[in-house]
């Protein structure tokens, strides 16, 4: 009789534990996955030198594009890709009379490839860069769109739109320290390039 009661109690605590795990899974939820485009037959190992164009800035932080651009340059250099100095890129853009980065044409990209002797250029934009407020906590939000354009053909060979998620499970429920904005932006750049290099 005693044995049956003990078994029953064990069963109840086991069930409670299972329910708790299920609830944790529900509340942690899943983030939207990173989906990218890679041109069929693209050989990224052949791309030895790139120029990173100034990024367009659609965020509320005036300097977000500059901050993200340096992170991209550092990330590429750390992966063994040669990156043209930003000053050289500005000079080339001036020479080609490109006044704003949103007006750069395919023929300008081809010309830049010859002028700077690069295999590809990175063009992109910052859609979000700042601290956003959730229901209970604030969290850093960084979203970028990057495209790698081959200078020989003017074709887009890689394109990705990536964003950091919201606050983590531990931050939301246990007040654990979240990522800083700087960490979040470094992560978003690193994760974007992880797919190709």
């Amino acid at each position, binding site marked *: 009789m005693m044995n049956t009661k003990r078994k029953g109690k064990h069963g109840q605590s086991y069930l409670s534990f299972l329910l708790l795990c299920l*609830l944790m899974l*529900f*509340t*942690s*939820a899943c*983030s*939207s996955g990173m*989906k*990218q*485009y890679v041109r069929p037959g693209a050989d990224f190992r052949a791309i030895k030198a790139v120029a990173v164009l100034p990024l*367009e800035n*659609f*965020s509320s932080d005036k300097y977000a594009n500059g901050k993200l651009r340096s992170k991209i340059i550092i990330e590429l250099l750390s992966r063994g890709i040669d990156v043209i100095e930003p000053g050289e890129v500005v000079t080339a853009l001036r020479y080609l009379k490109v006044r704003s980065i*949103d*007006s*750069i*044409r*395919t023929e*300008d*990209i081809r010309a830049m490839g010859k002028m700077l002797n690069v295999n590809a250029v990175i063009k992109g*934009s910052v*859609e*979000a860069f700042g601290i*956003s*407020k*959730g*229901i*209970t906590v604030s*969290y850093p*939000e960084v*979203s970028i*769109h990057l495209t790698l*354009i081959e200078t020989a053909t*003017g*074709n*887009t060979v890689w*394109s*990705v*739109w990536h*964003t*950091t*998620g*919201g*606050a983590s*499970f531990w931050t*939301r*429920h246990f007040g654990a320290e979240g990522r800083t904005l700087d960490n979040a932006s470094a992560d978003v750049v690193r994760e974007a390039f992880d797919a190709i290099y």
Partner: protein
Amino acid sequence: MVLLKKSFFVLMIFMLFIISGCRGSMPVYHISEDIDFSFYKKMAVLPLDNLTSEKYAGEIVRQVVISELLASGLVDVALPGDVKSAFNNIGIKSVSALTSDQIRALGKALKAEALILGAVEEYGEVKTGNVSAPQVTISLMMADTGSGSIVWSITKTRGGAGFMARHFGARQETISETVLMLVREAIRTLAEY
């Protein structure tokens, strides 16, 4: 008594599912029956009309549309700079009032079989009770540059705090994720066709 407790527990779970429910997120879309989507190899995404108070909402959604179209593997997408240059050459000043002739001319200039145009109608935080959550509404259209007519159109909204987020502190979507999922779902209707 035990049976009563068990029934109560099952009822509670059932209630949770009912309350959490599914929001009516069925997209309202139209697609011409006689189009052959394999014909479209290259598209150009035109600047979207921004009908919100968020300064860059149109451009933000445009970038996501470009990225998702490319990521879908369906088509190649023209560079925004080429689109701007074609606009200047043809003398188009406003995207919201494009004529069939201008659509055809843009198609020729950009060597694109279709143009994507549309508007961002809502972009920002919406307050429901004491909870704020991102909400975005877009409408997109695809114009065939051969005929100059609209062959696909969709209007879609996404956002608001879900049941789990409101009551159990589940992770809520950021505005960037809301835009991404919204555009992805819209493009899926095109990809599935």
